[in-house]
């Protein structure tokens, strides 16, 4: 039989853990989304840490629709891969409990501390943390660069005939110079 004090301690610990892991998140930002409200909050926090408002590209991650993008992205992935992405979100969210800088979840941190968390992942001596960072940044960068305003700011053109020589090339078809 568990002594009452130990039981109370375990119960309090369990409640704190449950609160830390599951509670206090906003409702879903995107209606009909696959990602839970918590997951959307993590994506939004990452999106604006990677692509902050007022930066050299005048569009933040949230403004570029990265929460919606990630939701679509995860929805389209095979089940196993989708699970890995969701675990990645959890890893980022609760990483500060282990790696700092403060023992709170990622979404509870201020802008600077969020950047510090991601920076420590980026430069971490732990390979897995660096991979987690790269995976998250690559997925969000795909969404960010897909936004026309970002592409415009980068002067990035998707042009099927960038040299304007299509017809000339086609006349000598065969692909030989």
């Amino acid at each position, binding site marked *: 039989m568990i002594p009452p004090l130990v039981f109370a301690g375990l119960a309090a610990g369990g409640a704190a853990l449950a609160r830390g892991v599951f509670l206090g998140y906003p409702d879903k930002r995107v209606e009909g989304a696959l990602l839970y409200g918590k997951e959307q909050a993590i994506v939004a926090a990452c999106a604006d*840490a*990677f*692509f*902050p408002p007022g*930066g*050299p*590209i005048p569009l933040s991650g949230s403004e570029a629709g990265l929460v919606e*993008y990630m939701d679509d*992205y995860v929805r*389209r*992935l*095979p089940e*196993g*891969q989708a699970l*890995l992405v969701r675990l990645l979100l959890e890893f980022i969210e609760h990483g500060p409990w282990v790696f700092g800088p403060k023992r709170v979840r990622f979404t509870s941190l201020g802008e600077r501390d969020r*950047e510090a968390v*991601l*920076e420590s992942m*980026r*430069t971490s001596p732990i*390979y897995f943390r*660096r*991979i987690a960072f*790269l995976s998250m*940044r*690559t*997925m969000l*960068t*795909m*969404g*960010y*660069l*897909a936004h026309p305003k*970002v592409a415009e*700011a*980068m*002067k*990035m*053109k*998707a*042009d*099927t*005939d*960038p*040299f304007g*020589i*299509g017809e*000339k*090339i*086609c006349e000598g*078809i*065969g*692909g*030989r*110079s």
Partner: protein
Amino acid sequence: MRTLDVIGASGRAAREGEPAGRTRRAPFDFPNGDPHAGVKHYDEYRSDLELDCDVVVVGSGPGGAVVAKELAEGGRDVVLLEEGPPFGKKDFVQEAGEAMHRMLREGGTRATRGNMFIPTMQANALGGGSLINSAICARPPAWIWEKWHRATGVEIDDATLAPHFDRVEEFLFCGPTPIEVQGPRNLLFKQGCDALGISSEPTWRNVAGCRGSGECFTGCRNGAKKSTDVSYVPAAIRAGARVYTSVRAERVVMEGRRATMLLGHVVEPFTGRATHSVRVRAKTIVLAAGCMQTPLILEESRALPGCAWVGKELMLHPGLAIMAVYDEPIDPWAGATQGYHSLHHLREGIKLEVLWSPPAVLAARLPGLGRDYQGHLLDYQRMAPFDVIIAADRSRGEVRTKRGSHDPALTFDFHDDDVKLIQKGLGILSDICWASGAKAILPGIHGIPEILHSKEESEILRTMKLRGSDTITAANHAFGSTRMSKLASQGVVDGYGRCHQTDNLYIADTGIFASSPAVNPMLAVMALADRIACHLLEAG
């Protein structure tokens, strides 16, 4: 119709000594302009499929499509199965995430596990990898075949293979990338090589009418790339082959030494949900599902009991890219995807290339976070990615079925000696960057400065103690998982792709490679597939 320096509308003509009816060049004149006319789509399946044929070929990529076309033109009744759907020009999207989801297995998130993660990809589409690769057609040097012969005892040499290479190159309009579509990114690489006295050359590619849109990875919206879905597959259909897409091959039924039937399912595009069952009875079965998928079919079939080589000996060409940064904009998105390369160090196992893929994917090499990262994205127009790939002869991996799925679980250990080799290539690559006029290099390697501002600073790329896990290494050339050998005890197939323990089960994909082809593997697997088809026709 476009005027071709070939042989008339049908593209059919026999060369002296060649079987009549063999098509020499990929057709251009498609019914209603649709290169996929005659291809069975998912929407057309109403019930279970029961088919009989002479030969069933699994996979429509560079291996399978060649076999299907050649055998159909040789008078065989051929069924070609492809798990992915067909993609037309209008189906191609440029957004990296969506493109990968639609055209790649596992949404493009596949990676090997082992002493590091190495992203790798496999197409899931009519045309297989030829739909999304850079169309590079490179012949392995003669010494590769000598090496394969020494390693496996298989009678294979340059002279024997030359006619097969000739035929494939002619059919696919292979030729050097024209100067008009190179664009600054490719020409800067050439400039750097020239300045250092390193030989380089325009890549030979299977294209006709390339405009340098740099969109090979997400599918050619110009229709210039002669991927197998618009070349070999339509030619096979003209010769009577039946082509079924959205059909997943799962198991070969064996009766003693003979493969008698192939079992599988119709699967919904993009979800993989199985709907109808598929049974194909055939006199010969050719697996060309790719070196990551064919071993799974063999494993599921228990077709080769006691063979210890199935799924073993997986080899890759690990590749590492760095970004050269220039003073002026060079618009890297314009120009042939990989228009130039250097084979100067090929004998050492090093191939140097220009690289391009969706910018978001390459951005993994960019340093910084937040505003800093955004700043680097703004500088993208001044960057050119160059990469080194190596013949990682010491590194090995394995292909096994992932539990509860039809996807492979891949392991691969990047050997320290091969890491040293890629580091050597990295040093040469950085020299090329500086010689081409770069003002900085973004190496994207953990543990060294994120921006190298001078040739002196970049010496660290040579002197540092590099570990594989410090790098962002990717590998899209995979081979060796069902290797060829003269003796049954040393491999899975013989020199003609026949599984040793069987009379009529063949493999025609990169799995049969004995080791690295030193260059991009597509042309080699097509030539080998052509040889396998010729052998099957001769065998009667």
